[in-house]
């Protein structure tokens, strides 16, 4: 008996034929055909009923025994179900392994839907963010993590940098929160405990600030005596043999004092609690001032070329800008041979305000450029020492810019000169009607 539907058709045809023949003998072929069809239909209905009963019991137990096309149907369904069950078990196992491994992550992980509702989170999120399972599913994450910094971070939707907030349940824990968009508008929020790193960072900063502070006092005493000795020598008292060493000593002491001054300045710039006053700072005035000062100070015969937009002012602290610009200028002068040119441009465009200091100096090798703003990093140790820098100038520039949300761009070509460009964000610019 072939189990396909054609077999079934044959069966029906043969049944009808036999019924018809027997019926003709009795003189009632139509009645016989009707009975055969009815029997055939009853058999099918009975099987449909069996199938339904079996399926309604989720097909857990063995399928009912069938005959003809029904055997094939039962068998197929049974096999399909077995395959599905197997696959489901496998998927379930993978899923539970996967969620167990993400749950064991040391960092808090929260899956957010497009409008910021919590869809899933791991154990660490309960610990660090104070979320509760399962009642917080569907809640907007901003309702439970309410720190203003986090609220702003989510509102801005700029996830390039992580945000640092204290843990909601325990203020002594600092969390670094980061959102990673993925898939179709889904977002993954990761929070990591950075208290230890933060503590070390604070310790390092405090150490540098304290050490510099402690060094300054003895140095002032030394400088004082050295000055007195210099005065004495210049008036012809004491042995003239000491004139050279004393001069050298006071020169080095001055250098040390300026390094300590720069270190303290950096420590101040790095300090966490910053409040930026909304004072207007006239940048072009500072630049003119600085250029005049440096001209007089170094007695240089460099040619300055200024192109300044004098109506363009920034918000911020005058001291910060002054120290940044002064460092850029000093650098340009220091590494440009006498007679060289220094171009200073100050302008604004759609991206923000920019200050460019370009020189025709000796230039910087490309491989050194990324490391220039590190503290005490020097391209050529002997040369820069002989020119009397502290090694902290560009670090200060970078920190000032970072504090104001800006960045420093450096371009250079060996032997032709370098260009340092400070980029300031748009919101720092004093609005145009104010400058008119």
């Amino acid at each position, binding site marked *: 008996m072939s189990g396909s539907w054609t077999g079934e058709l044959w069966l029906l045809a043969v049944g009808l034929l036999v019924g018809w023949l027997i019926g003709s003998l009795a003189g009632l072929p139509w009645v016989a055909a009707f009975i055969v069809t009815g029997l055939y239909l009853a058999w099918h209905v009975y099987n449909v009923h069996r199938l339904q009963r079996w399926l309604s019991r989720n097909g857990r137990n063995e399928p009912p025994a069938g005959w003809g096309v029904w055997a094939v149907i039962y068998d197929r369904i049974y096999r399909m179900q077995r395959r599905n069950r197997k696959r489901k078990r496998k998927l379930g196992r993978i899923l539970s392994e996967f969620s167990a491994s993400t749950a064991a992550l040391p960092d808090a992980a929260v899956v957010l839907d497009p*409008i910021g509702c919590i869809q899933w989170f791991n154990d660490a999120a309960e610990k660090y963010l*104070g979320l*509760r399972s*399962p*009642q*917080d599913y*569907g*809640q*907007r994450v*901003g*309702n*439970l993590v*309410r*720190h*203003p910094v*986090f*609220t702003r971070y989510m509102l801005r939707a700029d996830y390039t940098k992580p945000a640092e907030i204290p843990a*909601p349940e325990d*203020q002594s824990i600092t969390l670094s929160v980061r959102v990673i968009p993925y898939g179709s508008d889904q977002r993954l929020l990761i929070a990591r405990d950075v208290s230890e790193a933060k503590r070390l960072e604070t310790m390092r900063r405090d150490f540098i600030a304290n050490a510099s502070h402690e060094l300054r006092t003895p140095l002032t005493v030394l400088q004082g005596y050295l000055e007195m000795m210099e005065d004495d020598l210049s008036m012809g008292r004491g042995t003239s043999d000491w004139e050279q060493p004393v001069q050298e000593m006071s020169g080095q002491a001055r250098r040390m004092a300026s390094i300590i001054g720069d270190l303290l300045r950096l420590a101040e710039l790095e300090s966490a*609690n910053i*409040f930026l006053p909304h004072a207007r700072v006239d940048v072009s005035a500072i630049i003119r001032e600085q250029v005049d000062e440096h001209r007089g100070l170094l007695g240089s015969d460099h040619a300055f070329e200024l192109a300044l937009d004098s109506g363009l002012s920034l918000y911020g602290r005058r001291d910060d800008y002054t120290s940044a610009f002064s460092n850029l200028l000093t650098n340009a002068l220091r590494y440009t041979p006498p007679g060289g040119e220094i171009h200073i441009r100050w302008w604004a465009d759609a991206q923000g305000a920019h200050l460019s200091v370009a020189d025709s100096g000796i230039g910087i090798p490309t491989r050194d450029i990324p490391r220039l703003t590190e503290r005490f990093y020097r391209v050529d140790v002997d040369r820069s020492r002989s020119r009397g820098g502290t090694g902290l100038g560009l670090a200060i520039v970078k920190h000032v810019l970072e504090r104001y949300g800006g960045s420093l761009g450096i371009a250079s070509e060996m032997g032709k000169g370098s260009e340092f460009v400070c980029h300031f964000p748009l919101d720092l610019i004093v609005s145009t009607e104010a400058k008119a």
Partner: protein
Amino acid sequence: MDKPLIDQHISGQFNVELEDVRQQVMAMGGLVEQQIADAVEALVDGDGELGDTVERKDYKVNRMEVTIDERCSHILARRSPTASDLRLIVAIIKTITDLERIGDEAEKIGRMGSQLASQAKPKGAYAEIERLGRHVREMVRGVLDAFARMDPDAALEMAREDDKIDREYEGIIRQCITYMMEDPRMIRRTLDIMWSARALERIGDHARNICEYVIYLVQGKDVRHISLEDMEKEVHTHR
């Protein structure tokens, strides 16, 4: 746990509006929490600059109150909400008033902090103020969490905290009186500390009010002006 109360609307837009307002309330709460933390820190560490920052930031809290108020009126006018939605809007309008007052109290503490920063620190009392401050901040956080989760049990729990805060406050006052009797030169400064403690205690009272709104919001029961025991009974009947 069942879905949040408001998640059962035919109009998706209305849902979003309600959720947005609720989120704004929580954001305002977060700002207020931060203000309390900063104000207490400024007072205890004698950080005048931080105290000034707290004073200056209070306008943000006020501005948020106005914005949320406006949006609530808008929803009332356009959607004419009923039942639990109406209760939500009413609870929000009341909550932001209390949050704004909490902000004012924090501002007061911040101002006290920047005043006291220039003077020498008096001994004692600060540790207690710090503890009270931490306690109050925890309470405000718990209350806002209860609001976010619409959890009347947590709200009740937090309402109980208010009594503890009142007792702590009494303790500080007694201590301050002793200080003043010991050394009359300290009276001025001790009075400032007492005012700060008073402000913290008031924050506790406002937070308790918010607890009552949460219970009102979820269960529709008015539990104002009744004792804690009656409040518990109210919450636990008809569960």
